[in-house]
C-alpha cells in the first residue's frame, strides 16, 4: 500500500511535542497533504541547527514511520539515539522542520479468507509507531487486532500507551512491567493459542529476526517493517539495501520498508 509523496521537501511547523516515557512524540502540521498508508515513513530534518552535533552531524535527513495522521497533522514517535534524533527531540511548538514523504510500501491487509486470518502485531521500542497506525486502520475496518509489545524497562514501556487500538500485552527485559522476558515469548504463546493469523512486526533487528524465525517455523505469514540507514528515502542513493533470500538486494525505501518475511533468509543485523 503506497500513497504518493508530493514532489519535493516541504517546510512544516511543529504543532507540539510531548514526552511519553523514554520517547518523544512530535506533532507536525502538514495541511493538505495526502493521507499516508500505515507502515509508510517520512524523511525529517530540523530546519535550524541541523548539523552542529557530535562530529558536525547530522547532515542527512532521518527516516521516521508516522504514528498518527489526522486533521492535517502528522505525529512521530522517536527515541534519542544519536545526533539526528537528539536534535529532533529538542523541537517544540513553533519550530520548523523539513518534511518529505510519505515514502515506501506500507502493510497489506490479511487476505479475506474465508476463514479470514486475524492480525497479530508484534513490536518493540520504536517499532510501535507503524504498528499503532496499522492497528487503527484495521480497527476502523472493524477487524480484531491484538498486539504484543516488548520494551527495555518500565520507563520505556510507557510507550505502549501509544498503541491505542487493539488489546495489548507487554513484556519488559527487566520484568518491571508485564511479562518478564522477550516479546517473542508472548508471540509464541499467542500463536499456540491461535495461529490462523498474519503477524505484523516492527522493532530492533534482533527481535525482528526472532519473529521471522518463529513464524517461518510455524508457517505463519508475516510482514516485517525493517530499518536501514537511509540518505534519501526515495530510491536515489541505493544506500538502504537489504539482501533477499532469492539473491540480490532491494532498496528498503522504495521496495519496503514492509517486506513479506519469507523474502528474507534473515533480518540483517545492521545496515
Amino acid at each position, binding site marked *: 500500500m503506497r500513497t504518493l509523496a508530493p*514532489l519535493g521537501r516541504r517546510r512544516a511547523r511543529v504543532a507540539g511535542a510531548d514526552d511519553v516515557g523514554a520517547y518523544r512524540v512530535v506533532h507536525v502540521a502538514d495541511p493538505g497533504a495526502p493521507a499516508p498508508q500505515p507502515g509508510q515513513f517520512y524523511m525529517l530534518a530540523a530546519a535550524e541547527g541541523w548539523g552542529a552535533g557530535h562530529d558536525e552531524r547530522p*547532515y542527512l535527513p532521518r527516516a521516521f514511520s508516522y504514528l498518527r495522521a489526522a486533521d492535517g497533522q502528522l505525529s512521530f514517535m522517536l527515541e534519542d539515539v544519536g545526533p539526528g534524533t537528539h536534535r529532533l527531540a529538542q523541537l517544540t511548538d513553533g519550530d520548523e522542520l523539513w518534511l518529505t514523504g510519505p515514502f515506501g510500501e506500507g502493510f497489506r491487509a490479511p487476505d479475506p479468507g474465508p476463514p479470514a486470518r486475524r492480525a497479530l502485531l508484534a513490536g518493540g521500542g520504536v517499532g510501535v509507531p507503524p504498528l499503532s497506525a496499522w492497528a487503527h486502520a484495521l480497527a476502523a475496518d472493524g477487524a480484531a487486532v491484538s498486539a504484543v509489545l516488548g520494551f527495555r524497562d518500565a520507563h520505556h514501556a510507557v510507550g505502549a500507551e501509544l498503541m491505542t487500538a487493539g488489546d495489548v500485552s507487554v513484556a519488559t527485559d527487566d520484568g518491571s512491567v508485564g511479562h518478564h522476558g522477550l516479546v517473542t515469548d508472548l508471540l509464541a504463546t499467542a500463536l499456540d493459542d491461535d495461529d490462523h493469523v498474519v503477524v505484523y512486526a516492527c522493532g530492533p533487528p534482533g527481535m525482528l529476526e526472532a519473529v521471522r524465525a518463529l513464524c517461518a517455523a510455524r508457517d505463519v505469514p508475516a510482514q516485517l517493517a525493517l530499518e536501514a540507514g537511509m*540518505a534519501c528515502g*526515495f*530510491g536515489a542513493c541505493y544506500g538502504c539495501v537489504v539482501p533477499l533470500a532469492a539473491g540480490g538486494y532491494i532498496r528498503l525505501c*522504495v521496495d519496503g520498508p514492509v517486506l513479506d518475511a519469507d523474502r528474507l533468509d534473515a533480518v540483517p543485523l545492521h545496515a
Partner: protein
Amino acid sequence: MSVDFCGLRLAHPIINGSGTFDAIAARRAFGDELLERFPFSAFVSKTITLAPRAGNPPPRLWEAQAGMINSIGLPNRGLAGYLEHDLPRLAQLPVPLITNVMGSTEAEVARLVEAVDARAEVGAIELNVSCPNVKTGLDIGADPASLASLVRAVRPLTRKPLIVKLTPNTADVGAVAAAAEAAGADAVSLVNTLRAMALDPNSGAPWLGGRTGGMSGPAIRCVALAQVSSVALRVQVPVVGMGGVARGIHANDLLSVGAVLVAVGTENFRDPCAGARIAAELKSLQIAGSGSTTVNLSEPQPEVELNCGNSS
C-alpha cells in the same frame, strides 16, 4: 538561462550527478508530478556496466561532516537490462538523457558505447573512468596515458557527444583533462567522489561494506572548485562542474571558474527538488547582477608563491 551543451539545448545549467537521482524510482515515489516539474535540465543515468551488478554489501552509507561517504558499488541491471527496461521509461522524461557507462577494459567500454550510440533516446554519453586499470590497478582516470588510449579507442564508435567524467583522486587533474580532450572528448565532468574511509565506532573495523568509499557533499566543495578551475584553464571543451553544490551561489562559483553546466548530487538526497531550487537561486543571482562573469584566473600567482602557491 538556457544553455547549449555539445548541441543539446538545455533549459538551465543544472543537471544531476550520475547515481544521485533515480528518475524511475523517484516516479514510483512522487508519481507523474515528477514529469511535470522535473528538477534537472538533463538527466544523467547511474553508471551502467556490461554485466549486471548487485553492488556492495551494506552498510553502504556513512554520514560525515557536511557530507557523506558511499560505497554503493555501481549496482545496475547491466547494459541489456538498461536498454530494455530503463531506457524506455527514461525516454518519458521531459529532458535530454545522458547515459553514464563504465567498463574495466577498452573492449567493454567499446561495447557499451556502441550499444548506447544505437539508441535515439540518448542525447550524450558520459564515461565514468573512476575504475581501476586491470593491469596497473591505478584508476584509468588517474593516468593521462591510459585515459587517452581509452578515449581514442571509443571516440570513433559514437556520433553522440562524449563526456569524460574525471576522478579527483589524481595529482594533476588538469593534465588528465587535457589528455581526454586531445583524445577526442567533447566535454569533461568533475569531480567524482574523493576516496574516503570510516570505522565502525563500536568494532573499529571498516564501516562500509566496500571498506572504503567516496566522499561527497559540501565537505568536498572547495576541493571540487579548485579542480574544476584548473581543468577549465587547461581545456577548450565544455566543463561540467560538480561537488558539494547545495545552493545557487555554489553553482555560480563553478560557473565563475569556467564550468558550463553544474551537476547536483548529494543535495538531491536532502531535497528532491534541489536541482530546480538551485537553478532558481542561480537565476536570481544572475538577475541581481552578482551572477557569474567568468573571472580571469589565468594570471600568474603572486611572485613569492611561484614555488609553493598551494602549500601552507
